[in-house]
């Protein structure tokens, strides 16, 4: 790790002011990507602005129509929330399967989304449920948020404040984890929402994406069998020592089928 200056603002306004005047600074949320990167000397920020102490970013609100999660909320809090489990069980399930106990105790939803790791869990839920990402500047629709590998619609210095998930009629999430890292190799988040069927695939491509063909088939009939014969193209999918693009393409069908079954279809 190289030396850096450490700041711990108490308010969002302070954090914004700091990030505005420190072009080589980095925001620190749960630190689950940034700290290992620093330890390996793969990044050299001049300053770390720890947003973990900002009360405005914490907390969960659940209404009949939406689950709203503050950007600084830990995965573990989402996983354990009785209200989330009741409103969107698939979201609580997803949070309960992120990393391990230690990761869930520190990692935050805002940090996960801002990083847009292709193998992260939360992007699946955000895209699958058609969530709205609130930032210090604006609101961003899920469909406009993920731009590529480690790329989002966020501007420099723009901070995620909360994420609003509409409560679906039903939803399911299944993932096949990388055996070594336990990150997502292929995940599928399937939801029947007010706006129709949504199927979001994470882990398989450069960032989370929707699978239109499956959405169409499930709209006709919300049943695992509807997905059975569908095959996603391998082109453009990730390929590494753990899984080829072809295998990932196959897993997209399997995970989607199982997610539908989990959602009761």
């Amino acid at each position, binding site marked *: 790790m190289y030396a850096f200056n450490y700041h711990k603002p108490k308010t969002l306004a302070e954090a914004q002011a700091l990030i505005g005047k420190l072009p080589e600074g980095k925001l620190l949320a749960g630190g689950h990507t940034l700290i290992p990167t620093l330890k390996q000397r793969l990044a050299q920020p001049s300053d770390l602005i720890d947003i973990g102490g900002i009360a405005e970013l914490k907390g969960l609100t659940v209404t009949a129509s939406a689950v709203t999660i503050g950007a600084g909320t830990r995965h573990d809090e989402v996983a354990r929330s009785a209200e989330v489990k009741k409103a969107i069980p698939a979201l609580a399930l997803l949070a309960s399967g992120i990393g391990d106990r230690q990761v869930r105790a520190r990692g935050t939803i805002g940090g996960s989304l801002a990083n847009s790791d292709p193998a992260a869990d939360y992007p699946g839920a955000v895209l699958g449920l058609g969530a709205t990402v609130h930032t210090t500047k604006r609101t961003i629709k899920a469909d406009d948020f993920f731009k590529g590998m480690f790329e989002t619609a966020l501007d420099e210095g723009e901070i995620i404040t909360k994420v609003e998930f509409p409560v679906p009629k039903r939803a399911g999430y299944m993932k096949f984890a990388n*055996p070594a890292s336990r990150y997502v190799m292929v995940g599928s988040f399937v939801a029947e929402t007010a706006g129709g069927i949504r199927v979001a695939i994470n882990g398989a491509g450069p960032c989370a994406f929707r699978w239109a063909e499956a959405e169409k088939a499930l709209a006709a009939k919300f049943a695992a069998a509807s997905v059975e014969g569908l095959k996603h193209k391998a082109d453009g999918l990730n390929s590494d020592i753990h899984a*080829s693009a072809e295998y990932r393409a196959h897993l997209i069908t399997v995970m989607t089928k199982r997610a539908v079954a989990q959602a009761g279809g």
Partner: protein
Amino acid sequence: MNAPTGIGASVRRKEDYRFITGQGTYTDDINRPGQAYAYFLRSPHAHAKIKSIDISAAKSSPGVLGIFTGADLAADKVGGLICGWTVTGKDGTPHKAPPHPVIALDTVRCVGDQVALVVAETREQARDAAEKINVDYQALPAVVDPAATLKSGAPQLHAEAPGNLCYDWDFGDKAATEAAFSKAAHTVKLDLVNNRLSPNAMEPRVAIGEYDRATDTLTCYSTSQNPHVLRLIMCAFIFGMPEHKMRVVAPDVGGGFGSKIFCYAEEVACVWATRKVGRPVKWTSDRTEAFLTDAHGRDHVTHAELALDKDGKFLALKCSTIANMGAYLSTFASSVPSYLYALLLAGQYTTPAIYAEVKAVFTNTTPVDAYRGAGRPEATYVVERLVELAARQLKMDPVEIRKKNFIPPNAFPYQTPVAVAYDSGQYALSMDEALKLVDYKGFAARRAASEAKGKLRGIGFAAYIEACGIAPSSVVGSLGAGVGLWESASIRFNPTGSVSVFTGSHSHGQGHETTFAQVVSDKMGVPIDQVEIVHGDTQRVPMGMGTYGSRSLAVGGSAIVRACDKLIAKGKKIAAHLLEAAVEDIEYDKGTFKVAGTDKSVNMQQVCFTAYVPHKYPADLEPGFEENGFYDPSNFTYPAGTHIAEVEVDPGTGHVTVAKWVAVDDFGKVVNPMIVEGQVHGGVAQGVGQALLEQVIYDKQSGQLLTGSMMDYCLPRAEDLPSYTVATTETPCPHNPLGVKGCGEAGAIAAPAALMNAITDALGVEIDMPATPEKVWRAAQTRVTRQAAE
């Protein structure tokens, strides 16, 4: 009544309290006054010429005490690292052991090769300075694959090893084997890759070098499995200095699995650098360095064939193996794919003719050496995959074909066609016990139940043989070993009856402080809490050979028994004098010396006290109660047993669940059943890791290590493993005083074959390790296609 503590009792491990409460003293817990820190600049290239190294900017970096390159060590005439076992090839020439400099001179041959050593006030400062060293590399083409490195046109690693060949060696009777194949009713052929593994001890390697000007003595604190051997290598081969001027301390060591047997560059460099900077110098490996520099294991490519008669009786076995040595020969690397491999190819069977040839090769990868099992897992894997495949092809039951070929219990000692003579064994006994425990008869129903859920179920066997406690020294010497493989013990009674046992064995997780104390307590009649086991310090312990190859109890324990016997003999003389009887009339039993046929007796404590306060004492007897024992076994020991694995495969994803595991091992006499069970658990976990999850992968073009962290190198987790059913049968070793055979490696030897046999049984397709989800899914697809075609 107190719980039993003698031989055969499951005594709780004495060492665990300090380990689990964080009170252990590992090498990294040792900090010497004035200590400085070492950081190694390592090669980013798999193969490159070093055109120049510019340290000028780095030298003035804050905190720097010294920056050293290969040239500095050469100027001080520091020798290179050695290989301590010379294997002689088919053509009668010794293997090629090219120079292995502690720090690279003009060429780097693998990613992670040492290029420069920086010593600074802090670790971070040393690393900062290393980043300012400017090395001008001329990158060269690299080769990482053991088969590819033999091809013409492959990049050449060493001028001393043309064609990248270390040795071309064979063993067994080629003519007899070929003759048997020519008349065989059936021949079974199999190509196998034994995947390269990273040992991943929980504690990374650490070294501290310290020089004491007053006594002109160097001390090396190191995470070593064999401190005396490390001292011997450093003094005799690397520094050329007398051994009494070097002390090696290996305190609590957190796992070794073979990787801490070897003499590594970093410990040599720290010992050398301490005099250069006039300060103790400490190096602590991080996990990435561990992946890059700890000697790897396995990495074989093998073609194997088994000849059978029409009834399934084995006639001959032959195999041809290419073994990857990595970029340099590590300390005992050459012996692993030769003598520790081919000599075990008879397995548990009466196969009359066996022939093996092995080409050991250099590649631009981390050196490969002994890893838990070392050669024996590779042999078991070849034999047991072949046997299982033979059963499938001959449509025989895998149990039946094995039983038909087992060496029967009345055939021992049994001379195999590959030099070794098995001392004892009851192979069908272990097999039958395992069949009962796994409920073999119920398998068909379990398979049907799995299929009803859309899963594939398979069962696999491994009837393994192991050779532990490599010996005797005269034989290993004739095979090319540069060391003797005996063990030492010194037992010192203190005047009031407590005991200090100094052993040449080294514990790095095995529980010697408990097991050895049980032996001494049992033999000498001393309460177990009055027995202290001392190991891991050349200044305290007599010259010993350390721990590897499951040798500690069979060899080190036997040395302890030797010393106990000498003390008992001396004790009889003292007792006879005290009891005014003839020595011949003294009977000894568990701490009591008694005049035969009387109730007159003295106990061990009285005898011991008399030896130190010899007021009433035999005139011709030396005072004191302390004896040394050295033990050189007359043969290896041959643990054996049967492991049975049952798996359930999800054909949709290729995920394998290990559903059942039964291990029935014959380790001879067992001193502490709980510790033995723990050793089996750990060994099986590593074997399951090899079969399902672990593999070191290098990029074929660049030679970069792609599995350099836990993000990509997949160690087994608890959820990957089943609940084991572990049992033992007991066929005592006839040639050591405890009747013990060794248990540390058995699990890692048996497990890969058992598990792969189960997976291939489920799939109906032969695949290589590791059975990753994608590989299994593809095989499951092949199965579906084939079934459709049928």
